[in-house]
């Protein structure tokens, strides 16, 4: 996984200072999750403030994807508390939908809708979840397509785009819902090396604009450039949590040291 890492120098350099607010937007308290009898997440505690950019890393199977998928209830937790934007996640479907409206998510495999054109992919949720009229939804969609630099692809279908373009469309699709928080679940892991940078650059621009982001990624260059906090997970636990410079230069836990030596040694 390390050979596809884009170094921090190659990435778009942030031009604005990225600040973090005081408002708490995500609060996870003592959260546990089991798959059957397999204890996959153990006592997760995490607080995220508005405007924070958090990178979650760790070996595969460490539970990092599962953790962020709990935040918008793609996975159900069995114990503990998750509060997103003041709403506590429960089995109440209305509350789940309310949270999902405010939390955007990008997936490793993009999950664009292949039977709909790019434009239809972008306007579907604004029109049918937020009840925005089509003309206005298309205008917003075009704005975000321009921001991810592929407005000319609006009429095409996802199958006709490259992986990098598809992931940028997926980001634009989430942004069309004007989310308060963006979750990224290994957004560059399924991409060819030459396409990783274009996606990371879009994500960096997003961070500059003050978006609250939680990214599960192996892109350490990205973590150094934009993250204000790096979380290392292993075996379903948060092992270490620090601001990026200290995290990379001076990892405390030996498992963190081992992971970093493996991922950065090449």
């Amino acid at each position, binding site marked *: 996984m390390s050979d596809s890492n884009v170094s921090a120098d190659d990435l778009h350099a942030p031009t604005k200072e990225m600040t973090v607010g005081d408002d708490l937007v995500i609060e996870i308290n003592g959260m546990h999750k089991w798959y059957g009898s397999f204890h996959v997440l153990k006592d997760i505690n995490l607080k995220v403030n508005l405007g924070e950019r958090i990178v979650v890393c760790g070996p595969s199977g460490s539970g990092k994807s599962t953790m962020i998928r709990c935040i918008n209830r793609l996975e159900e937790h069995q114990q503990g508390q998750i509060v997103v934007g003041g709403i506590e996640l429960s089995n109440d479907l209305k509350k789940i939908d309310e949270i999902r409206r405010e939390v955007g998510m990008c997936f490793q495999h993009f999950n*664009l809708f292949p039977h709909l054109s790019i434009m239809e992919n972008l306007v579907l949720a604004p029109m*049918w979840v937020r009840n925005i009229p089509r003309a206005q939804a298309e205008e917003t969609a075009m704005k975000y397509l321009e921001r991810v630099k592929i407005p000319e692809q609006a009429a095409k279908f996802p199958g006709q785009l490259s992986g990098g373009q598809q992931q940028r469309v997926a980001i634009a699709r989430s942004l069309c819902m004007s989310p308060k928080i963006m979750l990224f679940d290994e957004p560059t892991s399924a991409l060819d090396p030459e396409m990783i940078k274009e996606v990371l650059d879009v994500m960096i621009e997003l961070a500059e604009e003050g978006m609250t982001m939680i990214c599960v990624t192996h892109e350490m260059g990205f973590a150094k450039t934009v993250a204000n906090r790096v979380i290392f997970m292993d075996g379903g636990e948060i092992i270490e949590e620090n601001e990026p410079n200290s995290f990379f230069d001076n990892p405390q836990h030996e498992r963190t040291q081992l992971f970093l030596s493996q991922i950065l040694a090449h």
Partner: protein
Amino acid sequence: MAEQTQHIVGEHPDLQPPASTVGAYGWIRENLISTPINTFFTILAIYLIYLLVPPVLDWLIFSAAWVGTDNTVCKNETGGPIAAACWPFVVAWFKPFMFGFYPDSELWRIKLTYWIFGLGVLALVIPAVPFKKWVAVFLLIPYPVICYYMYAGGSFGLVAVETPLWGGLFLTLVIAITGIVASLPIGILLALGRRSNMPVVKAVCIAFIELWRGVPLISVLFMSSVMFPLFMPEGVNFDKLIRALVGVTLFSSAYMAEVVRGGLQAIPKGQYEGAQALGLNFGKMMFFIVMPQALKLVIPGIVNTFIGLFKDTTLVGVIGLFDFLGMVQAGSSNKDWLGYLTTGFAFAALVYWVFCFGMSQYSQHLERKLHTGH
């Protein structure tokens, strides 16, 4: 072969392919005589065509009786039926074949609905016609209601026509189209129910599907016409046609449910997650994201079920309804036309084939149209 010319490296021009791989000769070489085994089967196929096609064409066309209004042209010297098709039989019985015993004076009602349907379909097919959505809605919802009142009569000043008088291709179409239009939505609901997390819903759907799939249609029809009335209170009597319609519809929805379920299983989990992450609730996710993709995947299976249903309508003959095939058989037991059943069957086969082939072609057109490239 051709003389080798030198080209500058990096500037090699595009050349014509060798003559033996293109054109008619290339095609024959590639497809008919590429290997000894291929050549053998080509010759065998030509021989089989030679054996089969000329006698069939002779029976259907060249030796057949074509002109005439009664059976005299279809008789040989000894007064028996000729050893070829007797098309005057079809001409003489054409009206009953098409409409059964529906009264002549009321036939305009059926024909009018045919015309409306034809025009509606034309409007859907011709790209330049506007309001396609409304035409489709009209054909799906008000049109069947209009048809019911037109066919059954008894209101709006129309003479009532009892369903025992309905027959022929008209009855076949009524049963088939009702079955097709009703079985798809019921099948979709059953498929969703079978995949539901709710145990009771799931169990009911599984039981329903397996029950209907586990019994032959012919017994369903028998049950509906013989046993069902026994359970009804005295005096309550459903029309025989309605009972057959319900039987055929439920029977094919069970098959439809399994076809649709196959499509649902092929939709990756990521599509559900993508839709959920955007805040779409279950209904919207199914309607906008999952179902369109699942149904597109199983178009061949859906149309296969439709075609099967269309041909299975012939089984309503066993409960005394005279559908198209039943009318053909009735016609050939008429004393004037004894011995021309084969001609009737040939005609029936042709008509059924035209309808089924039409459906098949339409489904392929739909698949091409909905293909979005992957």
